[in-house]
């Protein structure tokens, strides 16, 4: 389900880093030796032979991240992002694998379009990439795509991300048929008759600023519906970019009742609230919108207690001139691949709100599990998917630092802590700084 160039795997030794893999039960200063792209040894004073040596002293080595929610804008808006720039940005953010969303132009709703993307990824991706295909043709919410053929052609899952599936009857058929393909169905939950024209979260801030509100119930109502359908059909599903307190409650309840549902949350929803929009910065405009402080708290709680197992960036590049307009005229979406770890480390881990282990798990194991991808592990015999992090590095985020073709980051100008020093993806050094 993941595609990249066929390249020779590397021989690498990462020396003297604090190696942390909560699932493998490791937290110790160790050398990690990678032979031909596979972790061959963990230990102290390992023989480096002729391997490339990466000094890890004072740094942290963890399983690399997986981002299951990336807009690569290809085909159609290659000026905003393409496979080369998107995977380079991902590597710089510590990711060893990403999944691209199908809301491109044309939509990824046929094996032909999917095939051309896979071919492009095989030729030029910097790290392995997978592609989700659409649930409905043209993402118009009317007719199912040929999901069987798409799965056979390599689709990593199905979603109409950006658009909800409005009709419950069709949603039910999608869940039923999706199960046949063995791929996960991922849902953008939005009741558009409630969110219509909405620019930001409905609440005291929108009332004061005059923006049309996008109430949290527009999300949670659809979350409730889709969980009810998943329970009835006994099928798994994945809920994209949750933003509301009520959605977290619904997911927690459904999971407790045995529904096989996973949920994801973005760095921006974990770090910010609607108060930030007082600045009218169009780089704070996204769908779903930033919500209230109590929603943010609920998302953090959900992340901590395992209701939410996935952190996804919803990396959504937009051309500079399209964002450089009044807030209301700007498109929805912000970038995130290159800043996710630093943002979350700065806003949540460093102040002691969540544990580093939780963050590492939700950025790596959780996303891989949600889509049935191989989990990055630091264990002998595993493919080397590693990220080397400098938790003490403090730096300012500027446009120049981005490898993405777009710079619509909500962190521009902010000083953050936590820097990716190296990313090893599928046994190759994909990034180092």
């Amino acid at each position, binding site marked *: 389900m993941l595609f990249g160039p066929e390249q020779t795997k590397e021989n690498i030794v990462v020396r003297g880093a604090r190696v942390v893999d909560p699932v493998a039960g490791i937290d110790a200063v160790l050398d990690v030796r990678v032979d031909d792209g596979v972790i061959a040894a963990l230990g102290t004073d390992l023989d480096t032979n002729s391997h490339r040596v990466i000094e890890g002293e004072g740094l942290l080595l963890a399983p690399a991240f997986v981002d299951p929610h990336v807009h690569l804008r290809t085909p159609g808006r290659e000026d905003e992002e393409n496979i080369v720039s998107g995977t380079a940005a991902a590597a710089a953010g510590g990711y060893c694998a990403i999944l691209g969303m199908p809301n491109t132009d044309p939509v990824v709703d046929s094996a032909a379009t999917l095939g051309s993307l896979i071919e492009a990824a095989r030729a030029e991706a910097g790290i392995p990439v997978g592609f989700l295909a659409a649930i409905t043709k043209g993402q118009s919410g009317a007719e199912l795509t040929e999901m069987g053929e798409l799965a056979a052609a390599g689709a990593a899952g199905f979603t109409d991300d950006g658009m909800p599936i409005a009709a419950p009857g069709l949603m039910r058929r999608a869940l039923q048929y999706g199960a046949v393909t063995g791929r996960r169905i991922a849902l953008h939950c939005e009741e558009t008759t409630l969110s219509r024209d909405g*620019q930001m979260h*409905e*609440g*005291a*801030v*929108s*009332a*004061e*600023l*005059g*923006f*049309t*509100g996008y*109430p949290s119930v527009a999300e949670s109502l659809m979350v409730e519906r889709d969980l009810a359908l998943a329970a009835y059909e006994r099928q798994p599903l994945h809920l994209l970019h949750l933003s509301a307190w009520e959605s977290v409650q619904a997911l927690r309840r459904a999971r407790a009742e045995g529904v096989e549902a996973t949920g994801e949350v973005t760095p921006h929803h974990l770090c910010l609230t609607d108060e930030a929009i007082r600045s*009218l910065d169009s780089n704070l405009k996204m769908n779903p919108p930033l919500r209230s402080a109590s929603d943010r708290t609920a998302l953090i709680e959900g992340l901590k207690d395992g209701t939410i197992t996935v952190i996804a960036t919803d990396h959504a590049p937009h051309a500079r*001139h399209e964002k*450089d*307009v*009044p*807030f*209301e*005229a700007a498109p929805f979406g912000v970038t995130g691949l290159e800043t996710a770890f630093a943002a979350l480390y700065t806003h949540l881990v460093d102040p002691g709100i969540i544990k580093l282990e939780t963050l590492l798990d939700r950025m790596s194991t959780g996303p891989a599990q949600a889509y049935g991808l191989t989990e990055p592990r630091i264990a002998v015999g595993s493919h080397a998917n590693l990220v080397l992090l400098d938790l003490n590095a403090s730096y300012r985020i500027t446009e120049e630092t981005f490898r993405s073709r777009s710079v619509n980051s909500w962190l521009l100008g902010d000083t953050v802590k936590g820097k990716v020093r190296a990313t090893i993806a599928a046994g190759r050094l994909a990034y180092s700084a």
Partner: protein
Amino acid sequence: MTADIRVMREDLRPPATPPRRHFISIKDITREDIERLLATARTFERSLEREVKKLPTLKGRLVINVFYESSTRTSSSFELAAKRLSADTMSIKSSGSSVDKGESLKDTAITLGAYDPDVIVIRHPQIGAPQLVARVTEAHVVNAGDGKHQHPTQALLDLYTMREALGRLEGLHVAIVGDVLHSRVARSLIQALALVGAHVTLVGPPGLLPRGIEEMGCEATTEISTIAGADVVYILRMQRERMQEGANYVPSLREYTARWGVTPERLRPGQKVMHPGPMNRGVEIDPRVADHADALIETQVRAGLVTRMAVLYDLLTNGPIEVKTESVLEVA
């Protein structure tokens, strides 16, 4: 003549270059700012009682009015305010300009900024347009209405009108009636009244009272009878264009009028009535109310001129008119 003007301009100009200031949101200003602006407006009102109404105060300054939405009162009063202060003015409307050709607001602002205007007055249908213009030009920016967000000079002229009519602002009870949801006038006025210590009650249909609005420091109710307790009943325009079929904010304009229209029967004698215009007579306001002596609607229009003069003066001279005021006006 020239010599006189030069002397006067030196007299008015502060020694140092003033920091670039804007008038974009009531949120950005203080009670002291409001007091100063209202006092300046009062001074200008007296100057307008003369036979020759033009003052040389802003001679040589350039004020550009950019209106992306239709307007009668606001655009005409800004233009006249600038002219009364002897500034050069230019008015750009979106229709017939490069906006028709798809030029972005940013590019239009940069183009106008190339003329080195001292002030750009902008009205735009989108929230945040004035901030964008402030970011990309060197001009002082005055918000003449941005979407549903703010209309700060309207709030200022409304305070001016209330004070002239009632002699005070502190402790006044103002009922704002109608479509609060779509009203930038209401948002600015709620904040301005809170700043000066007045008490605000919003009255309207539930769908037109935005959720969370009480956190601006006011009350909100659907009960029209509450307006009888207010000193001032401020009626908002029912924006017909918002009431398109299927929006269902209210079932019909007829039903709106029946429940929330301001009629003489719903008022107490002596209550002052205001409306930012343009009025929909027979919809939100009964014609008998509009034409009654207690209606301050025409006063609001006159106040619009002098308060906008005060805003332009304040931005370009960095400070209170105070002591020098009288002499300035005498020179004129």
